[in-house]
């Protein structure tokens, strides 16, 4: 039965091949189902125009199901030729299991800095297995009309930030901040990881945490939780049951003034909102402090080691590594900032604002992604629940930090000394 089916497929491929003169179709696995149109209308036509004979199909799955679905497909041998890579361990484990091919020698890899590649390398940096595509930057997007109406200016320090929120709350015509805790990851990603780098000093704190020189119960890691604990009253009524799409809609409908954001929201918000938007970086704790932003290496693309079309797939990846792709991608998807060393001209003002912070602030990536989420309990997932609990007041900042540290110390050797 299986043989018959395969035979039939083979025969039909052969026939099609004979008719279409060796046309190869590449399938891309991705979690970015929001980008389907952009791939179909801009990126794929640009590639196909310069590479006759190779067809590309973009086949995304829902973000929350992507990792599970991809792992199952790879194990079953039914995955696409090109795999969109999550950063760090999810992709590293795919590489170690032999599902992703080594791309260290791919022409064009030299266009990326070591930091850009770090999310898709083995721990010792000897092999790179995905071509970096883009990073996302955290910050706050605000409704310019609302700010003008209330005579507000974007805050630079945390004190100013709360002053702005209090002012909006007092006025009452807008919900100060659109964020919910129902999906939990919003609280961690747009909350903790957004404002956190200013407290743990970006890379410095992140590396100290990985090395075990700092623990999650140390002040730099508890302080962001203390800030989150103050957020509850600024979120809308019933924020406990507010989901991520609810938050997006509240903001784009003009009912909320500030949206704790990731830059990936830009293209969606541009299409939905009919007011002018601005953005400000996470406010610093005190005036004059150096600023740090989460400039998170988020997305890359690799080659399925079992792909029968490896040759064509490598040509696609070479193209992804070129400045041409960077230009198309960064402008088609404002908010996904190219990791290519070649400078890219951005046309979207909001995206320009976000990317301008790279110049004045220090970049770092999300603290939980490298190495620290390798064990059970999973630090990233635990941070989601902890952040949501702290905002709701179910857990105090100190309790949440202690729980996270004990979870991490239970399996991560450099943190064994924090065990209780």
């Amino acid at each position, binding site marked *: 039965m299986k043989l018959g089916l395969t035979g039939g497929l083979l025969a039909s491929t052969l026939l099609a091949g004979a008719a279409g003169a060796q046309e190869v179709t590449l399938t891309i696995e991705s979690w970015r189902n929001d980008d389907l149109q952009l791939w179909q209308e801009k990126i794929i036509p640009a590639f196909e125009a310069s590479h006759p004979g190779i067809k590309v199909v973009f086949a995304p799955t829902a973000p*929350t199901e992507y*990792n*599970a679905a991809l*792992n*199952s497909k790879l194990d079953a041998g039914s995955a696409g030729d090109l795999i969109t890579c*999550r950063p*760090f*361990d*999810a992709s590293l*484990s795919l590489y*170690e*299991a032999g599902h992703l091919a080594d791309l260290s020698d791919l022409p064009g890899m030299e266009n990326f800095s070591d930091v850009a590649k770090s999310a898709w390398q083995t721990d010792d940096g000897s092999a790179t297995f995905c071509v970096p595509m883009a990073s996302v930057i955290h910050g706050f997007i605000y409704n310019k009309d609302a700010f003008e109406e209330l005579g507000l200016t974007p805050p630079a320090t945390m004190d100013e930030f709360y002053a702005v929120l209090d002012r909006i709350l007092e006025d009452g015509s807008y919900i100060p901040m659109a964020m*919910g*805790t*129902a*999906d*939990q*990851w919003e609280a961690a990603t747009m909350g903790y990881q957004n404002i956190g780098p200013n407290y743990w000093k970006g890379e410095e704190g992140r590396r100290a945490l990985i090395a075990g020189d700092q623990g999650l119960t140390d002040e730099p890691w508890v302080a962001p939780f203390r800030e989150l604990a103050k957020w509850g009253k600024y979120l*809308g*009524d*019933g*924020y*406990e*049951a*507010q*989901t991520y799409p*609810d938050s997006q*809609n*509240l903001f784009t409908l003009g009912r909320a003034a500030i949206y704790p954001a990731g830059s990936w929201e830009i293209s969606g918000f541009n299409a939905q909102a009919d007011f002018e938007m601005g953005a400000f970086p996470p406010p610093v704790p005190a005036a004059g402090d150096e600023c740090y932003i989460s400039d998170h290496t988020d997305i890359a693309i690799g080659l399925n080691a079992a792909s029968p079309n490896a040759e064509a797939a490598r040509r696609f990846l070479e193209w992804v590594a070129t400045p041409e792709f960077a230009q198309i991608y960064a402008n088609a998807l404002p908010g996904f900032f190219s990791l290519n060393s070649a400078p890219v001209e951005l046309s979207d003002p909001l995206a320009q604002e976000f990317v301008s912070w790279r110049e004045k602030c220090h970049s770092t990536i999300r603290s*939980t*992604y490298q190495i620290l*989420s390798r064990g*059970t*309990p*999973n630090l*990233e*997932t635990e941070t*989601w*629940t902890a952040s*949501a*609990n702290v905002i*709701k007041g*179910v857990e105090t900042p100190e309790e949440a930090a202690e729980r996270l540290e004990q*979870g991490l110390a*239970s399996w991560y050797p450099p943190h064994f000394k924090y065990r209780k």
Partner: protein
Amino acid sequence: MSDRKPRIRWHIVVFLAPAVAVYSAFMVFPLFNTLRLALYTEVDNVRQFAGLENFRRLFFDPLWADAFWNALGNNVWFFVIHMLVQNPIGILLAAILSHPAIRFVSFYRSVFFIPTILSFVIVGFAWKLILSPIWGIAPALLDAVGLKSLYAPWLGKEEYALTTLALVSVWQFVGIPMMLIYAALLTIPDEILEAGEIDGITGWSAFWKIKLPLILPAIGIISILTFVGNFNAFDLIYAAQGALAGPNFSTDILGTFLYRTFFGFQLQLGDPHMGAAIATAMFGIILVGVCIYLFGIQTRLRRYQF
């Protein structure tokens, strides 16, 4: 002449073969393979035999045990709500529908049964919208009757979320006990009820003294169906709250716990061996429950022949 050998009745084998083959390939083999998978673990991409280590971790290692007992406790509560709310309401509806004075019986019957045929995804999404603090009609409806103070973002509160979802599930499935009981009530011969009437048993006392004892076997079947269904439940929680079964794991039941463990979640990679251990534990729990019913309850139920 009469020493004929007992013939092998080949036709029995032939007729049974397709069902046995399909059942073995798709049910028996995967089941035992899952049980086997639970005895292994993976170290550095190599599968190793680990004996009962996975179960020791699941039941006694606080990292796993806390999540497991939390999921089991939630699951028990989910089942209790169904037994206390869904089944009595189902019986009540059936009793009302079988009353001869009620008109438009088939209309009501269909209305109550329709949610059962809806997809979990639709039910989960629709209720999430109804109860939403932002777009939902629940706050507005309560406001209209002056009870706005009763409203809370139920799905987002740890103390209410599981009960809310259990009640949504009850809303969806109340049609099934109703139909089964209704069918059982229809089989009760009128002569028995008339004989009771002559003895002065009418109305509600006829229900309690005559009908209820006669439908007890049907209630038993419904209980066991509810039990198996609830302990295998997953879809509604997943559709409404996602695989993380928020807030703070308060709606986490065995099915969602299994899903997260087996397939992985966000940065957490899937662990098929621990997943299989959880699946085995679920299988054991259901097996024990069904056995208690079969040997402890069903054998004692009295059946009546008319």
